[in-house]
């Protein structure tokens, strides 16, 4: 059966016999049943009943690729964190190891949106390459949509990373992880017949370790998540979700305390879900508060946000579904420059991040069409209307993806789409969102490829892609132009284009022997003020490979290698910048080994040893060249060891 929301009709007697043949329980997150006769399995002699309906729910295969939480647990270098695992996917170009800013198919970090349970995450990771701001136990899977992405998500010109929340547990479960730098815990439990409560969080105590490297620096971070789910009836559910995070990385320079990285964000959402005959309608109210400190803490930006949103997903026939939705949001920004002395910098912040109220109205519509003969097509349209300080802009984003299942093993897929986005900060940070200024960025994306199921449950996916980004705000990517042309500033808009091929060969990491091989060959360029140069983080080759093996008796080990070619060097002449020398390639090895002790039916305690960049390789930060030689600046080694205890019940 093709992945997606499908309705399956089965007779009670058939269901009973299946239940005997396969006693393994259906996993709660992927299947819910309604109308099942509770006496069914124990009463096989009962007369044939009317057909019952079982709704099988699972993620649609709509162009995304990713990992489940179970896989990520076995992935060396991911620290059991699904959001950290996205850097292993094809199409993702890292800036630096452990730095949570990725170029995706050539698009800058600010043009890729991160969503948790449908809610945008304004930050992804804690400071100093720390863990993600959402407890891993609350994330069922993470999917990267590097190209045209589903119309439910928007306001980003390039791609989307979608973290799906785990379903509320049917039985109490908990997780505890104690590490050298922080600890986290999660508890997820039913309360009574119709209520579920999930609480999780993380708290850091990394200073003693940080002081070994830098006595003047201090770091503090924490995050929390709380979810209360209330089933109102068989078809109605109410969920209250709150989450947030805090980060403060400071140092002391000439007696002055500087904030190198300071953010806070909080979200609270109330969601009502109502089951329809062939789908679901969802209404959500969302409130948020974001805060970022910039320029050593002398600048503070606040964003008080609110949103109301409705989504409908409904099957129209056995071959047609529609998805539609609308939202209205308001962001009230405040800017505090009281500590900033530099008048030029004050002016720049006032122009780019003024106190204001921004409004966005959005709507989308998509159809999932099964056309027969193995062909399925999903056309969609999204529109976002922006208003900021008297300026208005409208982004209309048509998208279409198509799949042709040639055989049970081979399918071809293509996608084409447009996406719009307001200007983005060079480095995304909560609340640090510029005004509309010179208008929306526009992304035009195309991808095409095939998926092939090989023997031994190995899957191969190859995708060709091409992306063009217009009116692009990417001061990092076009740095090689601004370095050589004084007319180009960080506010100058440019054009980006990238193309390449991605390869993913994978066998689930949860198998006794599992692993993957990823490879991206790409070229990403920026055109600004009639100059065309490679993007500052254009890496032609990115190769990743991982292998995990279950030795039995609770022992499991894994190794992962990452190799990427160099970035363009800084050169003085624009003519040389068109095809500049490159920095040295970089590779690293990550290791993970675990001994798991079973505890009860489903609980366990694990001793985990994991290290990112076990080979202690130093990474090249940049290079500066003249006609005779290049001089590279290196950083690191950025090595993150992790010795921890994980427990779950």
């Amino acid at each position, binding site marked *: 059966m093709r992945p997606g929301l499908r309705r399956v009709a089965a007779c009670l007697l058939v269901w009973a016999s299946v239940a005997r043949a396969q006693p393994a329980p259906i996993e709660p997150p992927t299947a819910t049943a309604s109308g099942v006769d509770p006496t069914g399995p124990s009463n096989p002699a009962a007369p044939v009943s009317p057909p019952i309906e079982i709704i099988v729910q699972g993620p649609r295969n709509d162009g995304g690729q990713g990992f489940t939480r179970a896989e990520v647990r076995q992935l060396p270098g991911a620290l059991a964190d699904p959001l950290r695992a996205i850097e292993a996917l094809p199409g993702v170009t890292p800036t630096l190891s452990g730095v949570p800013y990725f170029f995706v198919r050539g698009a800058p970090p600010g043009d890729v949106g991160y969503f948790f349970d449908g809610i945008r995450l304004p930050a992804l990771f804690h400071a100093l390459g720390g863990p993600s701001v959402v407890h891993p136990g609350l994330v069922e899977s993470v999917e990267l949509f590097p190209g045209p992405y589903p119309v439910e998500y928007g306001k980003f010109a390039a791609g989307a990373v979608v973290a799906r929340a785990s379903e509320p547990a049917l039985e109490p479960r908990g997780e505890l992880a104690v590490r050298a730098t922080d600890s986290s815990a999660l508890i997820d439990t039913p309360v009574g017949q119709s209520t579920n409560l999930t609480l999780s969080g993380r708290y850091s105590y990394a200073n003693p370790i940080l002081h070994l490297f830098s006595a003047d620096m201090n770091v503090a971070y924490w995050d929390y998540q709380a979810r209360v789910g209330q089933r109102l009836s068989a078809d109605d559910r109410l969920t209250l979700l709150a989450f947030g995070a805090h980060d403060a990385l400071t140092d002391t320079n000439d007696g002055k305390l500087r904030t190198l990285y300071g953010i806070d964000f909080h979200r609270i959402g109330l969601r009502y879900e109502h089951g329809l005959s062939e789908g679901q309608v969802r209404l959500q109210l969302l409130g948020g508060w974001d805060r970022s400190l910039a320029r050593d803490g002398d600048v503070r930006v606040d964003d008080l946000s609110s949103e109301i949103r409705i989504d409908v997903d409904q099957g129209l026939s056995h071959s047609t579904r529609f998805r539609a939705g609308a939202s209205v949001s308001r962001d009230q920004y405040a800017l505090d420059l009281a500590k900033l002395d530099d008048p030029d910098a004050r002016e720049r912040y006032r122009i780019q991040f003024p106190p204001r109220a921004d409004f966005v109205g959005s709507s989308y519509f998509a159809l999932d069409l099964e056309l027969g003969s193995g062909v399925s097509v999903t056309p969609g349209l999204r529109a976002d209307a922006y208003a900021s300080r008297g300026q208005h802009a409208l982004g209309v984003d048509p998208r279409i993806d198509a799949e042709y299942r040639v055989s049970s093993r081979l399918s071809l897929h293509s996608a084409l789409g447009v996406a719009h986005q307001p200007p983005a900060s060079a480095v995304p940070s909560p609340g640090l969102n510029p005004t509309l200024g010179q208008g929306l960025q526009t992304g035009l994306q195309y991808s095409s490829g095939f998926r092939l199921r090989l023997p031994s449950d190995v899957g191969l996916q190859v995708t060709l892609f091409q992306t063009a980004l217009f009116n692009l705000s990417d001061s990092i990517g076009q740095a090689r132009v601004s370095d050589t042309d004084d007319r180009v500033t960080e506010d100058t808009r440019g054009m980006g284009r990238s193309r390449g091929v991605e390869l993913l060969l994978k066998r689930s990491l949860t198998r006794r022997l599992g692993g993957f091989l990823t490879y991206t060959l790409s070229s990403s360029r920026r055109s600004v003020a009639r100059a065309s140069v490679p993007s500052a983080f254009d890496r032609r080759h990115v190769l990743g490979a991982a292998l995990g093996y279950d030795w039995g008796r609770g022992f499991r080990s894994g190794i992962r290698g990452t190799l990427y070619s160099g970035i363009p060097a800084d050169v003085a002449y624009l003519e040389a910048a068109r095809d500049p020398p490159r920095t040295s390639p970089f590779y690293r090895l990550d290791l993970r080994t675990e001994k798991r002790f079973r505890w009860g039916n489903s609980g366990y305690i694990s001793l985990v040893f994991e290290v990112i960049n076990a080979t202690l390789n130093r990474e090249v930060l940049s290079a500066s060249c003249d*006609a*005779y030689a290049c001089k590279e*600046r290196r950083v690191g080694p950025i090595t993150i060891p992790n010795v921890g205890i994980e427990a779950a019940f």
Partner: protein
Amino acid sequence: MSSQGRAAWSLLLTAALALLSGGCESEYSLPPTACDDYCHATLRGNCADDAPADCVRDCEKANTATVRDRCAAAWRARDDCWLTAAPSAFSCQDKHSKIADICLDERRAFAECVSPGSGSCFDQCVRQAQACGSTLSDCEAGCSNPTPACRSASVAFNTCLLGYPVDCGNGSEPDTRDPAHTPCYYEALGVLACDK
């Protein structure tokens, strides 16, 4: 192995070969310019913050194309001298390469070519560097700046200074001396008036 499997492994092999071959990593695509030569000759301290591209950019800003063409011979002679100097003549200051006070004749000739008459300024810089321990290159850079209109005033001022002992006075302190007892006071006024 099925044909689909063979196709998949062929693709993998191709990708691996492309990667192992180093792809299409490019070399520097322009022939060396005069500023490339200058930076190649001067950034020899192997210092942490030496940045050849920045050096070339600064060099281009400090020396117009006209100057580089007109003084090509003096430029080359100065670079050649630095290139043949011992590595010990290059050190690091604030993580940037610093050149010892070598190749003085070539540097003076270059300064004189860029700005005729600035040889006296260069001589004064050398005296000051030797007597006060200051950095010759910082002072030297100022010698090539005077506009043609100010050139004569600058020459008069520096020629005058050469007739007096070097004054290593604290530059940050106001000079409270009587003008009549300040060497080259009126020549200095001439330079200041010209700069306005």
